[in-house]
């Protein structure tokens, strides 16, 4: 045979069976211990530090290519980009004027009701690493880990809306489960009428489904779904998706509703990992702890001049929490 040197013709593999049984028992033991008891996390974290260089080595050519493409982009392309971004910024600032008024109103109303507002108070930007995990599960690897204060269950957003949540934290990286993973469900609310339900992943990044709505439910194509904040995992009011199709079969008791996710699940490269309450933001990295000191009162104070009749340009310098990410980037 071409491929083999036949250099080991003796055929003696002393103790093959013994070694096979030993290793198999070891592996079985690992599976059982890892599944039943959660105390292998340290070993796993330690092993992942060993695996990190391999992942980094695979990722670096792609990161280098991105960097190269950015640094050789032409003047025209940059100018075009600049003009587009300016236009987008103008539009965003236009929306912001209303947002601040609404925000202060919400804070006042919630204060009246004695409600604790679960608004995301701090963000850290994480880059998706160009590394493929299991092909059959909707997961991505992000370059922030326990080192940056990331915790399991942390909500993850992108520029469009809710992206997923942190499923596993290693020392330097963490694994994010997408809202489109078949094992993921997120409590949502229809923005138009407040109807609450649960959006479940399908394994397809362009589709979620609402399996628990009765056929009589008031849902139409184009309805915006936002997080309801129930369950406490996600901050309330962030867009999850829009209803793309509603099928009502009179013979069934439940409607068949398809949702198109608001986040660019298959295209985003930068994600925002969010902290819900100031108390969770404190033990993380010390440099970013200050912006989250007392968000409610800070925002109420910031909104006060607007009520007093200050013109919108003056209020532009005040940033709401959603526009904070570039400033909150950890070192």
């Amino acid at each position, binding site marked *: 045979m071409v*491929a083999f040197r*036949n250099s*080991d013709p003796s055929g003696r593999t002393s103790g*093959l069976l013994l070694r096979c049984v030993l290793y198999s028992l070891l*592996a*079985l*033991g690992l599976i059982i211990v890892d599944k039943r008891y959660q105390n292998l996390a340290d070993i796993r974290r330690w092993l992942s530090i060993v695996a990190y260089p391999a992942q980094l080595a695979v990722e670096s050519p792609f990161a280098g290519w991105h960097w190269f493409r950015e640094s050789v982009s032409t003047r025209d392309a940059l100018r075009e980009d600049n003009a587009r971004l300016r236009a987008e910024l103008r539009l965003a600032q236009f929306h912001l004027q209303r947002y601040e008024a609404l925000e202060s109103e919400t804070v006042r109303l919630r204060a009246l009701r004695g409600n604790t507002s679960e608004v995301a108070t701090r963000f850290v930007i994480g880059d998706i690493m160009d590394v493929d995990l299991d092909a059959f599960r909707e997961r991505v690897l992000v370059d922030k880990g326990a080192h940056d204060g990331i915790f399991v269950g942390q909500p993850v957003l992108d520029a469009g809306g809710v992206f997923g949540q942190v499923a596993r934290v290693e020392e330097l990286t963490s694994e994010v489960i997408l809202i489109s993973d078949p094992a993921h469900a997120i409590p949502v609310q229809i923005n138009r009428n407040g109807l609450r339900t649960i959006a479940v992943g399908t394994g397809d990044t362009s589709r979620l489904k609402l399996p628990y709505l009765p056929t009589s439910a008031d849902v139409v194509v184009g309805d915006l779904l936002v997080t309801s904040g129930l369950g406490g995992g996600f901050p309330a009011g962030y867009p999850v998706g829009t209803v793309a199709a509603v099928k009502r079969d009179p013979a069934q008791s439940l409607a068949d509703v398809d949702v198109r996710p608001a986040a660019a699940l298959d295209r985003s490269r930068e994600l925002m990992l969010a902290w819900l309450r100031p108390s969770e933001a404190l033990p993380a990295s010390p440099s970013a702890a200050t912006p989250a000191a007392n968000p409610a009162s800070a925002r109420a104070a910031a909104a006060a001049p607007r009520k007093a009749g200050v013109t919108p340009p003056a209020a532009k310098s005040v940033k709401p929490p959603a526009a904070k990410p570039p400033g909150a980037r950890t070192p």
Partner: protein
Amino acid sequence: MMRDDPIRRMPMALSALVALALAVIPLPAALDVFRPDLLVLVVFYWSIESPRAGGLTLAFMSGLALDVINGVVLGQHALALTLMAAWATHLRLRLRVFSLLSQSLTIFALLTGYQFILFWIDGATGNPVTSFARWFAPVVGAIIWPLLAGALGRLNER
């Protein structure tokens, strides 16, 4: 041969590392399901070529690396790879004199067994992947086996 052992471990570790890197290299989603288990094929090759240089240890370690990188329950790939590498070692004398086609068919059986153990542990640990696409990888693996064995044989001769 005993005197060859230290020389032989070098290409072994090198090829395993390259295969591990190729296992996580990003591919378009449409191609991802066809990604062959290269590291598994490499482990099979060394189990057949030089069983005394520690093929089973390589199998166990590679399996652990795959577990950590894929983020699945620790020991899953390690168990599957150990069992299948032991089987490949058991079959090695026959495999060496097989024609390329018979070799590929045997490798297909081994890869399918490997996938089946993964499938079974996935189910037993409560996150079953029932997609039919997971059975594509053994087919692709069996098809590229002659190329891989040739390349590794060349590497080993140097």
